[in-house]
């Protein structure tokens, strides 16, 4: 007689589903529900319908925060993904790479808040290393209030992000380059190809799939940036580095508008989901070279 295993698979899935429900599903549903209310976190909930969503689309600071995060994503695409790709190419062309791989990857391992605090000291306009260094080499005209000047604050945050995550993407691309059969590279070298040509004409095309994933990670991660901006500028000066996450944290925790902040969070979630869907539609299928 065949045993009845109808319940068994579901029981095996139950613990994982429980964790998923507690940590993701319930908070998601709770936030969605709160987005239709006005609540200060401790008093009574008041149902407001879609008023929070209408307000969000008229909130100039919130709308501008998407523009700021777009600039940040484009900048970090260059400073993280492109830089990571170039670093991986340079490192993979060398015979002994361990030291370089570890050195470039160390910033990735440090907590973001710690890095942000360290860099806030470096960029401090009064005591910081950068302005002091510029002074020492006679370039005091280049000194700036890096995190207090609307023209440089977002760029400074992007550069710091690049400093941190270029090593992460370098590691990803390096792993991709390591999968390329060595005989292909050797035969190109025998045919007289230089390292730059090998990198540009062979290695980069052969890791296109990895590049597409890296771009998706950079875009979705960039839109959710919080720690760096919060510690370095907290959206300032004058909201010029405000990004959606810092604005919604301020709305919920400083202004105690939990309902409105929940609506902002739902909109952000929808934006990220749409980007993911758009990415999967745009990505060309199965045109990767198999090797």
């Amino acid at each position, binding site marked *: 007689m065949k045993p009845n295993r109808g319940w068994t698979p*579901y029981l095996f899935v139950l613990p994982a589903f*429980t964790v998923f429900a507690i940590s993701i599903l319930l908070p998601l549903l709770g936030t969605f529900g709160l987005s239709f209310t006005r609540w200060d976190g401790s008093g009574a909930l008041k149902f407001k319908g879609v008023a929070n969503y209408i*307000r969000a689309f008229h909130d100039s600071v919130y709308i501008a925060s998407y523009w700021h995060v777009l600039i940040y994503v484009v900048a970090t695409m260059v400073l993280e993904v492109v830089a990571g790709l170039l670093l991986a190419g340079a490192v993979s062309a060398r015979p002994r790479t361990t030291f370089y791989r570890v050195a470039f990857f160390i910033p990735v391992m440090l907590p973001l808040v710690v890095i942000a605090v360290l860099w806030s000291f470096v960029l401090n306009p009064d005591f910081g290393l950068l302005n002091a260094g510029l002074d020492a080499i006679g370039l005091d005209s280049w000194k700036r*209030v*890096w995190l*207090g000047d609307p023209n440089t604050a977002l760029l400074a945050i992007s550069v710091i992000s690049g400093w941190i995550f270029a090593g992460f993407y370098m590691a990803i691309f390096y792993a991709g380059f390591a999968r390329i059969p060595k005989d292909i590279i050797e035969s190109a070298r025998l045919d007289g190809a230089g390292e730059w040509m090998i990198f540009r004409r062979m290695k980069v095309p052969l890791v296109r799939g990895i590049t597409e994933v890296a771009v998706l990670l950079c875009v979705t991660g960039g839109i959710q940036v919080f720690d760096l901006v919060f510690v370095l500028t907290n959206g*300032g000066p*004058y*909201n010029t580095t405000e990004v959606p996450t810092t604005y919604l944290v301020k709305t919920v925790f400083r*202004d105690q508008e939990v309902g409105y902040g929940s609506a902002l969070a739902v909109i952000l979630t929808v934006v990220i989901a749409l980007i993911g869907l758009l990415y999967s539609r745009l990505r060309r299928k199965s045109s990767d070279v198999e090797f």
Partner: protein
Amino acid sequence: MRMSRLASVVAALSASALLLAGCSGSSGGGGETSASPSDQILRIAMTEPGADAIPVWNQVKTTYEAAHPGWTVQYNFQNDDIYSTVGLPSLLSGGNAPDIFFEWSGNRLQTRHADGYAASIGDQLKAKGVTDLYIDGAFGGTSVDGKTVMLPLGKDVSNVIWYNKDIFDKQGLTPPTTWAELDAINSKLKAAGITPYAMGNKDLWPAGNWNGHVLSRIVGEQAYADALNMTSPLDSPEWVAAMDKMKEIHDGGWINDSVNSVSDNEGYTLFFTGKAAMTPIGSWLVDVRKDQAPTFNMDWFNLPAIDGGKGNQQSVLGVSSGLVVNAKSAKIDQAVDFFATLASSDIQAAFVKAGSSSLTKAGAATGLNPLSQRLLNLIETAPEIVSPPDTGYNLKVADALNTATSAVLGGAMSSQDALTQAQQKIDALK
């Protein structure tokens, strides 16, 4: 087969729901506490009182517990910034909500009262003789709708202008009595290569407080309150002219270039290391100096009178703070008893010896640090007390005004543009 699969799914979901219900614990919705006989814990939530004051708070705990056998006092001290944002609301809406909590007067206290968290305790305090232990005027700012809902702990002056006495003496300067005299001091300092003001306005409230006081002096206290209560615009010509005082400070190069990119603590460091002659900040600088620069020679003067200003030119920017009994607690009587212990002469004298201020007669008799005593005298004798934007009013409105102040002080916007933008943000809230 299909029914069996459906039944399996329903069973799995039901099991998850049961598991989740078991994990959720008490609902605690709205911060209700249960008054079961076994729950003899008086929970008190407040901001960190400082290392010197903690032993005195422990003395209050020990004294109360000795007088109330079986009862335990449990403190929950939190960092100021955390407490004032997410900390207190989380505690109030969670399980085991505090029976007593620290709060600031003004909009915050009114919000707690509107949400049903502030018990009326005036009659009980009178009956226990607690009210009589306090100096005249101590209970100002502790009432909502005519009912006393807060036991006052202190009155903080939120902004005066602290100055480096050594720099002032060396430059032959004395504290000004008018804004014009202050302008002259700023020019003289600048000519001598000294930055007049240092401030860390990254979080917007330091300059927001300073300019809030300046604005109220110029447009008048009622116009200031009306604009922050959203009943009149703050981008009127009068307000623009008032905001130009901050523009003067930027245009004169009278404040550190980094004003909007460094924190308040970094601002204090600039002042204590002699990088500037003055810093406009609140009474807590006395405690900061104790930790960071105990031998630093400083003094303060209130905002000088502004010629042509419609407000009271002797006003003080300040805020009361104190302890509130959670109206949803079943231990209101025990909480008021705790207040009676707290307000006793020995305890208040101990607080003053530990460097804290006291609004009781016993505390006044003990005597504070001279700088702090003069500040307490300033606020107690003030003909008008003006609330800072972020304590007395809606936080989004305060943020809009404080952002405008930072933009003008940083030279990023004209007064008109900054206030117009602020008003647009405020209009979106209505």
